[in-house]
């Protein structure tokens, strides 16, 4: 796969969706494109023709507001028609503003309220152990999300139950709605925190798919894995990169055209 070309296509779809609905979250959607690509194109055992396969790997977008990225990839994989992407956030659409597993084919778990996806993935991983299934659970967390106490309740349980079938991936773009993490509520040494909670931890360039793929293969027997993916908020759109103001702002026509042109699709 030409990762660069595919990433541009995904980003173009994200921009079209967000421009059409004049709402949603561009910054954090653009930052996790490569993370989700590494999972969906290279790592997870899934079958778009059988989205409810009980043995499939599970994906939990705990930072549910980045769902345009998930929807663009699911459409690309054939879970639903690509032209439906433009219905995002519209009335009667099966593409909700935050992921809804009862409405959207390929969405495993509903998320959006921060922290809850982390805990639900612990439950999915515990259920795999109990039923002796070999599926893996992959969870993408936001950095602001890690301010939720629930994330740490989940982390404690993940280590306690030795969930070596569970991987938390942090989209560490350092920005949240009101500003930088450090301005709002510092995460401190986030890797040390997850290590202290009992995770194997590894750092990667969150925009380098080969690096992410390799990190996802990190051995972590008897413990959950934490991959700190260093990313840039608004990645791939020059005027959005590293600008917290683009967490949840709609684009005007001029901005949309410029952003789309940068994707060269």
């Amino acid at each position, binding site marked *: 796969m030409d990762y660069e070309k595919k990433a541009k296509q995904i980003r173009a779809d994200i921009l079209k969706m967000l421009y059409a609905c004049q709402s949603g979250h561009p910054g954090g959607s653009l930052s996790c494109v490569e993370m989700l690509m590494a999972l969906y194109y290279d790592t997870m055992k899934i079958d778009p023709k059988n989205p409810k396969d009980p043995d499939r790997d599970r994906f939990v977008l705990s930072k549910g507001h980045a769902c345009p990225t998930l929807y663009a990839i699911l459409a690309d994989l054939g879970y639903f028609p690509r032209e439906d992407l433009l219905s995002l956030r519209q009335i009667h659409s099966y593409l909700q503003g935050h992921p809804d*597993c*009862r409405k959207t084919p390929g969405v495993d778990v509903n998320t959006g309220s921060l922290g809850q996806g982390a805990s639900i993935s612990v439950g999915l991983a515990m259920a795999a152990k*109990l039923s002796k299934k070999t599926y893996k659970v992959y969870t993408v967390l936001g950095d602001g999300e890690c301010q939720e106490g629930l994330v740490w309740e989940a982390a404690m349980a993940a280590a*306690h139950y030795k969930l070596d079938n569970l991987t938390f991936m942090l989209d560490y773009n350092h920005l949240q709605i009101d500003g930088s993490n450090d301005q709002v509520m510092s995460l401190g040494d986030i890797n040390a925190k997850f290590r202290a909670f009992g995770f194997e931890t590894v750092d990667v360039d969150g925009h380098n798919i080969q690096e992410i793929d390799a990190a996802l293969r990190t051995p972590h027997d008897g413990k959950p894995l934490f991959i700190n993916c260093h990313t840039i908020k608004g990645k791939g759109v020059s005027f959005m990169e590293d600008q917290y103001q683009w967490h949840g702002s709609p684009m005007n026509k001029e901005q949309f055209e410029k952003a789309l042109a940068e994707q060269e699709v």
Partner: protein
Amino acid sequence: MGKSLRVAYGEALAELGDVNKKIVVLDADLANATQTRFFRDKFPDRFFDMGIAEGNMVDVAAGFAHTGYIPFVSTFALFGSGRAYEEIRNSVAYINLNVKFAFSHSGLSVGEDGGSHQSIEDIALMREMPNMTVLVPCDPTETKKAVKAAIDIDGPVYIRVARPVVDDITNADDPFVPGKANVLKDGNDVCIITCGLMVKPALEAAKALEEQGISTAVVNMHTIKPIDADTILKYNQKCKAILTFEEHSIIGGLGSAVAEVLAGKAGAKFTRVGINDKFGKSGKPEDLFREYGLTSEHVVEEAKKLL
């Protein structure tokens, strides 16, 4: 022979765990209080202590339900319905997920632990969620039926479990159909609609009223949601007065649910007996019931005021 509702709950889970291998049980360090210990000791592989972290416990249960298990989640009613409210709302009720919540130590009857542990609002919090069924059993026998009924419902169910040891009022062969109230006694003047531990004093109040020549019906509204509107409306026509009686705040509980049915309908006079917009405090359950007006004497007094 008396038995605590929580013990009946624990025994029912352990019995049904044999029949239904999809049942898993999660507790937050309270297995010996909620009585999920019966299930834990019998099915250690399907019991998960999630530590003192109620929000995480609910979401982990959601994860189990996503894969086809039927999780029962137990803790104290206040920490389940209060602390983990939003996890229940967004991870379970929002998508009609098949998770059962059986929260014990509800109401003032927690007693000595005091107001910080006495849940007076759990029915309100749970019944306002779309998709949620709310059951409030009145005795050990009905508690066991509620657990079985909850398994038969494909969706979230809340069972309100009380702590005290009480005698059975209902019989093993009485029907228990969620959404269908049980009329324990018919009458023409006053109708007492009640649930949970207040069913017994409601029957005593009815006896006292009958002795004063006031014909009194008693309805065991074991399901707060979906509420049995037909039975309420029937007694709204038949009786001169309807009185609700519950071990819960009169704001948002059974009384409110009945008021919502009666709104805009001509018929009987109506009042609510319950905890009147106050928090609880330490004391023996019977002393608290007296102080907060949860007695048959108070019900008799309020019923006569309406007539």
